[in-house]
């Protein structure tokens, strides 16, 4: 196992993006290459995960400049799990996009942009240097800016203005935090920063920097007072792009929380209480926001906000079980939200509308697709034995054990409202009455596809559902894995050792 193969998750999307750009006038070729590249990435990430599954940490210094002066790339359990999940989600979305994205978007560079987005994501999960993390964040957001405006419809532009503004503000706040951190401590390497803060103690300046990072990542992760861009921006692009964003982009904010707030900042009582209240408010307000939505995508966007609250509550609990619950829920949420958005994309292709009022009677028209829709909704709602249930159980138990009863109430309330919302959505789509004049069954985009293409669209959703269900059924080994990840996060000693000894 060569040490430099850590760079494969960065190389593969970059090479694919360049190939897609060279083949700019051949969108069909781009669709195939993108799918092939994503499947290769799944295999690579499985192989890479195999080497850290026992708890070791894989560090490489770029250019052989030794830490802490050089730039480190670190691959530990959390990075491994996230890279694997991102590759699986990107493979499903590549398959769906290859079949469903309209040719005007495909010929204007959807696939190269998608690969650049993946490049930024994999780079962020591998970054061991805080300024490198900032640069990968910028790669992610610039690709997402173009993806969200591709197509140029009016609603896309309005949503994009909010999205662009708030993300640029988040970047500036992140950069300011990095500036003050560098000025205070003189280094940018995460492991070195962790050691220095542990030695110097946490004074007011470090706490201020912590709050700056909290706000910057909070805007990206869409926590309570900073989430307003999400329900306006995510419903506007086509369903595949929403699926990519909903499954992958907000989760980078949570990954940044997990990485920075476990390594760098010791959470004192104030920050912990602040995080808990923000988590509760995010969970409950996000879920309540989903109650009256008529647009399916806006409903799922509010559910994304609500479930970010679950992730934040695990971080706020700042214990082994809390981080285990958060990391497990993170993986489940990535797969679940993507599958829900892909389901809305499929429904759009079948019925021609994203409005819930235009849907109904799917159980009679397409009985087998209806089964998958019910499964997707059940996993996201967190019913046992599917994957949403176990991490929520861990979080509820841990918040009860720690005496944070308000957090327990918030989690249970948000889960109940999520279940209500999803049950209402599914029953309307499957068994409800369509309120508007219906499209004839043979007219839809879906019906006009060849059977192999229909199977392809369904396969993308089914593959995510299989992953999601196995996340639920293989609870025991996954719990061990995420406990290992959590102890790696809570005791950064092994991380620091691995980086600084190079």
């Amino acid at each position, binding site marked *: 196992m060569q040490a430099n193969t850590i760079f494969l998750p960065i190389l593969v999307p970059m090479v694919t993006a360049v190939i897609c750009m060279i083949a700019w006038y051949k969108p069909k070729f781009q669709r195939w290459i993108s799918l092939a590249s994503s499947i290769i990435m799944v295999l690579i990430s499985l192989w890479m995960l195999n080497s850290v599954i026992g708890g070791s940490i894989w560090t490489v210094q770029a250019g052989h400049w030794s830490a802490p002066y050089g730039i480190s790339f670190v691959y530990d359990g959390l990075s491994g799990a996230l890279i694997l999940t991102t590759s699986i989600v990107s493979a499903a979305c590549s398959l769906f996009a290859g079949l469903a994205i309209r040719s005007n978007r495909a010929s204007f560079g959807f696939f190269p942009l998608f690969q650049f987005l993946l490049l930024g994501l994999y780079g962020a999960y591998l970054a061991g240097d805080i300024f490198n993390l900032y640069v990968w964040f910028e790669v992610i957001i610039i690709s997402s800016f173009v993806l969200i405006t591709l197509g140029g419809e009016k609603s896309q*532009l*309005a949503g994009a203005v909010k999205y662009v503004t708030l993300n640029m*503000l988040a970047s*500036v706040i992140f*950069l300011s935090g990095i500036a003050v951190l*560098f*000025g205070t401590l003189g280094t940018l390497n995460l492991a070195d920063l962790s050691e220095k803060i542990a030695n110097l103690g946490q004074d007011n300046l470090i706490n201020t920097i912590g709050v700056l990072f909290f706000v910057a990542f909070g805007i990206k992760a869409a926590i309570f007072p900073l989430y307003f861009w999400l329900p306006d921006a995510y419903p506007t692009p086509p369903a595949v792009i929403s699926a990519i964003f909903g499954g992958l982009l907000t989760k980078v904010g949570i990954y940044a929380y997990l990485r920075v707030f476990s390594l760098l900042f010791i959470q004192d009582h104030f920050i912990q209480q602040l995080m808990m209240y923000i988590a509760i408010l995010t969970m409950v307000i996000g879920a309540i926001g989903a109650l009256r939505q008529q647009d399916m995508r806006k409903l799922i966007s509010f559910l994304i906000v609500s479930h970010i609250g679950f992730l934040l509550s695990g971080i706020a609990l700042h214990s082994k079980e809390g981080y285990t619950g958060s990391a497990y829920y993170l993986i489940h949420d990535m797969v679940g939200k993507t599958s829900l958005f892909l389901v809305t994309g499929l429904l759009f292709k079948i019925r021609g509308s994203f409005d819930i009022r235009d849907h109904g009677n799917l159980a009679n028209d397409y009985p087998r697709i209806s089964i998958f829709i019910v499964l997707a909704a059940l996993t996201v709602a967190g019913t046992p034995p599917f994957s949403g249930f176990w991490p929520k159980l861990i979080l509820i138990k841990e918040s009860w054990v720690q005496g944070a009863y308000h957090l327990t109430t918030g989690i249970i309330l948000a889960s109940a409202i999520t279940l209500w919302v999803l049950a209402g959505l599914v029953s309307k789509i499957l068994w409800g009455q369509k309120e508007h004049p219906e499209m004839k069954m043979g007219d839809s985009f879906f019906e006009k596809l060849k059977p192999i293409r229909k199977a392809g669209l369904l396969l993308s959703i089914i593959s995510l559902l299989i992953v999601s269900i196995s996340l639920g059924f293989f609870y025991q080994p996954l719990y061990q894995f995420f406990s290992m990840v959590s102890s790696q996060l809570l005791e950064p000693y092994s991380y620091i050792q691995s980086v600084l000894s190079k």
Partner: protein
Amino acid sequence: MEVLLSLSIALLYAAGIFLMLRRSLVRLIIGIILLGNGANLLIFLLGRITKGKPPIIGADAEFMMDSYADPIPQALILTAIVISFGLQAFAIILIKRAYRVVKTDDLDEMQVKIEQR
């Protein structure tokens, strides 16, 4: 010198945030630009200003003398300038296109027009 720089950074941040909260699309993008410049100057200030010294240590220096400029903040600022330049270019074109489509520079009216569809 540092005091002057701190005051100007504070002014840039304040002006940037003030402009970002305006109703006009153009003022929004100018606010973003000012805010980005403020952040870059902040990195410059916090990298310990030295006058007239290159970020290189001479080959014949036997011990670390305090007479070189720190190269890392320079690299950080360059990277941040390039990144924010790219983002601002995109944001300006986005706002131009949004203006063409909704025919107004006012964010509130844009929201109303979008909701009316």
